[in-house]
Every structure is written in C-alpha cells, then in structure tokens.
C-alpha cells in the first residue's frame, strides 16, 4: 500500500467482521407454515480491509454512518474479534501472543470513545476512572499513584483538584479530557479515536484537537482518527482512508487526497463538505443514500449512486490497487 520504513506499528490484514442475526421463533414458525424459508441475516460490517499504520503516523478514517468505521476501530483496538483476517502489532499476529506479551500489546492500543457521557461510569470518581487501570496493571507503585494521577490530569488540561469529583460535575469538553486521560494512563503507543470530538461545540472541538496535537508530540503517539468530519480529519491526519459500506475505497496522503481525489465517492464526499465560504454556493449533491449493509449492491458497492458506473461495476467488485506511490483506489475507472 504505502511506502513505509520498517515494520508498521499496527497492520490489518484482510480484516472482516460479520454480525449474524439468527431468525427468531416467530420467523422460524412462519417458515414452517410455508412462507419463504427463514435464513440468518448477515451484516458484513467490515469486509476484507487491509491497511498499515506506521509509528508516529496519524491516519484518518472517514466514512458516513453505517459504513463500518467504528467496527473497524473496535477490531483494531481489540475490543471485538475479527471474523476473518488478523491484526499485527509490531509485525506479530496479536491473536498468537500469550502471557505478558499479549497483555502489553493490549495495553499499547487504547480507545477514546465518541460519547463523553455514556463512556464514563457515572458512579466512579475521576481518580478511579483514570487511576484504576495503571494501578491494576502495576504500571505505577501505589506510593507514586497520586502524583502520577495528578500528572496525567494536568497533561490533559484538568485541575488535579477535580480528581474526587464524579463525571456529572463536568462539562462535555472536560469529560472528553477525562476519557483521553483514561486512555493515556496506561501509557499506550496507539490511540483509536472514534468520533472523539463529534459531540462537542466548535470552540471546544478546537481545544480538544489542539490537545491531540500536543499529546502526539509529548508521548510520541500514533493515532487512528475516525470521523465523519472531513475538515477535522484533514487538519489532523497524515494519511486518510475513505470507507464505504465496509470496504476501503481509497487511501492517500492527506494533501494529495484533497488535491486530487481519485474515487468517485471521495470526489463526491469532498465536494459536499461545507466550508467557510465568502459566497453563497449552490449545492449539487450526489443522488441516493447509502444502501443497507444487510443487502449491499453487487459489484462495486457505490455503483447505484456513481455517475460513472459501467456494466462491469454492477457485477465485479473493484480491488484496492495502487495508483501512485502511497496511493490506492478501488475503482474500475482506473483500468486493470
């Protein structure tokens, strides 16, 4: 895919996740009575995705709701197991690691969640939310624990005096900071940020984006930054992955992607991003909506909405192939 030096920090190989809904009693009963046979409904949330993230890189993962970007984030963070494929951590299959190595690999990848309200336990004090994990995992001796906690809270811009408070006593922006502190407390190398700033007001968003930039410097962090907001992703990422209905359709360095998007979906997405403009503009939207992942269209998933769709697009799914150094796109228009 992209030119990179050495072993990537995280590499996904052919990652798929299927969610299966077995027919319930009523559906099986109607099947017995002779209507259409009940069959399990399968959602291919993530469908054969491969990518690599180098140490120190910020990779943006962009897509609309239901495209599978959160599921992919959870797979990478190790919160759910893939149906197929594997995740390599520093070149080694994470599923094969055992004992202390497995634990270290898990701690090294942490996740920051979208909703700063539901992702914090309302009955725990900030000191426990942030401080419990490093203590349990033996990262800090008990004697130094208070100082460690104060340091982490200060780093994310919270007053250590707030450690005794509960989440409901904080504003949305402060809660985001608590979520970030919790992830940082176990000294991770890789952070999966799943729509981490989507729920915040514009001026608070800017504060949190700045915090992410500062922390990257301070802790030498690597991010997978998941968002539907292209503006934010453009600002923070070195490289961008565009996802549509479970598949990656394009990947490119940020500047190149915005300068010359290749895939028709990327082009449409970039054209629709609202930007600060001095003039009123006319919106020329792409037609249609994202199809249901329960019943994705055959061939290229984007073909029903694509202005350039050909006969081949309806039958054959395009592979993600390299179109330039560091760039790949999954579209038949590129030939091959």
């Amino acid at each position, binding site marked *: 895919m992209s030119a990179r030096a050495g072993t990537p920090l995280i590499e996904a190989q052919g990652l798929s996740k299927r969610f299966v809904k077995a027919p319930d009693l009523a559906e099986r009963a109607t099947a017995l009575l002779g209507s259409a046979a009940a069959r399990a409904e399968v959602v291919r949330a993530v469908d054969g995705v491969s990518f690599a993230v180098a140490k120190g890189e910020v990779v943006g993962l962009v897509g609309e709701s239901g495209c599978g970007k959160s599921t992919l984030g959870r797979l990478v963070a190790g919160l759910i197991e893939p149906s197929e494929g594997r995740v390599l951590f520093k070149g080694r299959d994470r599923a094969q690691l055992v004992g202390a190595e497995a634990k270290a690999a898990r701690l090294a990848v942490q996740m920051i969640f979208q909703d700063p309200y539901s992702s914090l336990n309302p009955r725990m004090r900030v000191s426990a939310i942030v401080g419990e994990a490093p203590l349990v995992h033996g990262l800090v001796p008990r004697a130094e624990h208070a100082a460690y906690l104060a340091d982490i809270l200060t780093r994310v811009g919270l007053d250590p005096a707030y450690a005794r408070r509960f989440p409901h006593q904080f504003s949305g922006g402060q809660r985001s900071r608590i979520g970030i502190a919790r992830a940082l407390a176990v000294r991770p190398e890789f952070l999966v940020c799943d729509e981490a700033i989507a729920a915040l007001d514009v*001026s608070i968003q800017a504060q949190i*984006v700045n915090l992410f930039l500062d922390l990257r410097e301070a802790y030498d962090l690597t991010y997978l930054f998941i968002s539907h907001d292209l503006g934010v992703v453009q600002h923070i990422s070195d490289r961008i992955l565009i996802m549509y209905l479970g598949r990656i359709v394009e990947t490119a360095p940020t500047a190149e992607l915005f300068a010359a998007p290749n895939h028709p979906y990327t082009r449409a*997405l970039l054209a629709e991003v609202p930007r*600060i403009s001095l003039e009123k503009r006319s919106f*020329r939207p*792409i037609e249609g909506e994202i199809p249901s992942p329960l019943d994705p269209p055959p061939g290229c998933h984007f073909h029903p909405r694509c202005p350039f769709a050909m006969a081949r697009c309806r039958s054959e799914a395009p592979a993600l192939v390299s179109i330039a150094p560091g760039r790949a796109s999954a579209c038949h228009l590129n030939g091959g």
Partner: protein
Amino acid sequence: MTAPAAAAEPLARPATLEVADLRTHFFTKAGVVKAVDGVSFAVAAGEVLGLVGESGCGKSVTGYSILGLVDPPGRIVSGSICFAGRDLVGAPEEELRRLRGSRIAMIFQDPMMTLNPVLRVDTQMVEAILAHRSIGRRAARELAREALAQVGIPAPERRLRAYPHELSGGMRQRVAIAIAFINAPDLVIADEPTTALDVTIQAQILHLAQELCRKTGTAMIWISHDLAVVSSLADRVAVMYAGTIVEQGRAGDVVGAPLHPYTRGLLGSVPSAVARGVRLAQIPGMTPSLLDLPPGCRFRARCPRAGEDCGVEPTVSSPRPGREVRCWRPHLEAAA
C-alpha cells in the same frame, strides 16, 4: 439597551419578520435564566438568515419565541416580534395557532419531533393541510403527493402509505420539510435540520432548502452551530453568544472580515487546509452560565482584546455599512 429595530442595512424587500429587543427569560428555582436577552434582527422574503452559535447561546429559544412555543417557566418578558404587520408578542393563542403550520413553519433537528410515529405519512400530511385550508380530502392527498415529489422523494405514492420508521433519516427530514412548506408559508424556521445527517445527505437537504426558498420566496431562519454550512447557505448571518447577537451582516462580510472577537474565534476554531497539523486558534474557557452572567460584556472573560471599558455592557454599533456589532473594541483594522 436601545438596539435598532432592524438591521442597519436597508433590506431590498420589505421585511417578512422583524424582531426587536426580544427577551425570553426562564424563571427557574435556581434563578432567572436569560436565554434570549435583547435580540434584534429582520428577515426579508426569499432571504435566508443564518443564526449561528454554540449550544446554550439561545438560538433555538429565539426560534421557539417567534412561534410562541416557549413553555413555563419561560416567557417573553419584553420586545416585539413583528410578522405581517402584527406583533406576535402577547397575541392570543388562537391567532398563533392559525399562523403556525400555515404562515410560519418549523423544521426541527430530529424529524421524529415533527412526525407522529404511529400515523402514516399521508394521514399526517393531509391533517396538516386540512387544519388550515377548506378543501376536500382527496385534493389534500393529491397536494401531499405533489409536495413529496417536490422534495425529491422517489415513488411518492408509495411513501405516502409508509410509516415514519420505514424511512431513512434523510427521507424523514425530507418529509418534515415537505410538511413545513406544504401550506406555502411566508417564514420557515429551521433548527439544525442537518446536524444529525451524513455529509452527502446534508448536501441534499441544503440543496433542497435553497431551491424551495428561491422558488417560493419564503423567508428562512436557518439555526445552526456550523459556520461552514451557514456561510455557504445564508444571505445574512447573525452570530449569537450567551443570549445576545454579537454580530450580524451579509454572510460574506461577516465570514470574510469578522468584527467581533467571538466570531473571529469561532472562525479560527474551524479546521482549515491552510494550517494542517498546526494548533487551532482556540477560544479559551467556556460559555458562561446564563444564570450567572458576568457584568459588562459577556465575552470578556474569554476575549483576547478585553480591557477596562468592557466592564460596561457594549451597545450595538454599525462601524461599517450593513454591519452591526456589539463590542467596544471590534476588529476594525482587519476589515479593509
């Protein structure tokens, strides 16, 4: 505060709506929340006014006040809302009821606030028409079908028989917009109608709103937290902060050369391509509680330009033609 009744810029067309020094306060147990505190603006026929601000700045309450939808403990304590030559403040409920849905309509962020989940789309649309017009049921249903076709819903005859849960989020918002426009209103108030939608669907809805206003000459107030959306959609923009409009003027002027430090801060908070990876110009601190506003300028504590004189509440001035700003120290040097 003596604010001018209308925008300083002479409107090209007669104003559909003129709001002057509107104050809507909520009398809670904890004290008086001054959600809207001296707001003045005007909207002309066919014009889109963008009302921008962060959560809790009073932009939605302004919209609800116009429709007479403020419930106790809130009430309009002073000011006037001039619509079609009548002051709506203190107008009898029966008169407001006749205006709502026919002359003034509202589109909400969540279309399920407009749609009744247990009624079919046609039932609700026909009801909305018959509440304000004396025509037959069949004619009303025909109107409903045309309205759905006009908002770009494919197979409108089939959608009429659908229940709201059978439609996607974008489709529901289209139905809500069709209902808002169905009685050819003079004014539509749209409260964050695209915030919950994906980028490509948002563009479709923005396109639709633009088209409808252009075709029907309806005046529109587009309430949003998203400056980027508003700058490309609206003719004029009013920026709200802590219950007051701090700046208003033509959209291009406000965005191109903001006069108020808050507008400037908001624009700086929006990630842009120019400064990738660079810290955003964030606004420090957070919005003050409307229960306990500091004396003087409400933005003083977060303002980089604040000085002694800001201890006195600023009045509205018009330092440039067609512009209004509520600040003692506006950014006059930046605007050419």
